[in-house]
């Protein structure tokens, strides 16, 4: 009996935590590398439609986003619930898109301009009218590469 009791007390050595920082640092670096900071606050609700034939978007730095959807709950009091366009951090009218594309272009290197893509992130319940208007404006601004943002999923 005595033997066992002795064993009990000595059988629990403290686990060395010396390598804990290493493990945590490893995780930290993983998240630091994969992280993408959210640049804009969304004022519109966007749930993109589902699709199967999707492609990953390359070169995120060359993508400009246009959000289309109805304003979020807290904004509905002042903006109503009709679908609106959001560019950067504010609501915008269709006519402002050309200007938006121009500023986006100025921020990029001249060589990269032909590779710039415009991603349309529109809610699935939005009507095509507003999207068609946006597309027409993009054509006028000669930003012809577009991407309809979608989720992966089957019907």
């Amino acid at each position, binding site marked *: 009996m005595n033997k066992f009791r002795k064993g009990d007390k000595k059988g629990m050595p403290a686990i060395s935590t010396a390598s804990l920082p290493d493990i945590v640092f490893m995780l930290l670096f993983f998240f630091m590398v994969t*992280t993408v900071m959210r640049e804009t606050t969304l004022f519109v609700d966007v749930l993109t*439609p589902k699709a199967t034939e999707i492609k990953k978007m390359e070169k995120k730095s060359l993508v400009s986003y246009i959000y289309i959807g109805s304003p979020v709950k807290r904004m509905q009091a002042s903006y109503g619930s009709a679908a609106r366009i959001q560019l950067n951090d504010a609501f915008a009218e269709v006519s402002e898109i050309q200007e938006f594309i121009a500023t986006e272009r100025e921020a990029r290197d001249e060589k990269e301009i032909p590779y710039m893509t415009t991603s349309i992130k529109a809610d*699935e319940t939005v*009507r*095509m*009218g507003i999207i068609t208007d946006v597309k027409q404006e993009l054509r006028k601004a000669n930003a*012809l590469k577009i*991407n309809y943002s979608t989720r992966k999923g089957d019907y």
Partner: protein
Amino acid sequence: MASSRRGLPEINAGSMADIAFLLLIFFLVTTTMDVDTGIARKLPPMPEEELQEEDPQIHAKNIYVVLINTNNQLLVEGELMDISQLRNGAKEFIDNNGRDANSSENPEKAIISLQNDRGTEYMTYIRVQNELAAAYNELRNKAALNKFGERYDNLNKTQKKKIRKMYPQKISEAEPKNIGGDS
């Protein structure tokens, strides 16, 4: 010598884990892992006004007309169609190769014309775009398997180019019209 060694006491690294944890939690919270995916399309350039282009002569049989109305219904080649049948319909049309006299002559000449209403739901529009893209992808895959014994995605650049030339994706969107209902 002995004194200089004593002058450099070891820094206590016990709190390093805490600091690292703090940073880790910060990045965990701010991280968004979603990869942006979507259907890539190219818009046609704006027609120049003074330069009135004459319409290129395209036989009506080489055009596959897809209309979507305000109620998200499809009218394909003059007939009502369910979206689930669109993929096969488009595939048959593209890969007709002159079998049916009223369908396309060959895949290179086949054009899909898509027109939607201002009141059409975006979801339906994307689904139609998706089905049409799927039709082309399936045909390309089949051709790639026949010719190179590999799926289209696994081919190298020149092989992909060849397949793309066999099945060029020609989806034309008509200038928008407001047929029925408001947006």
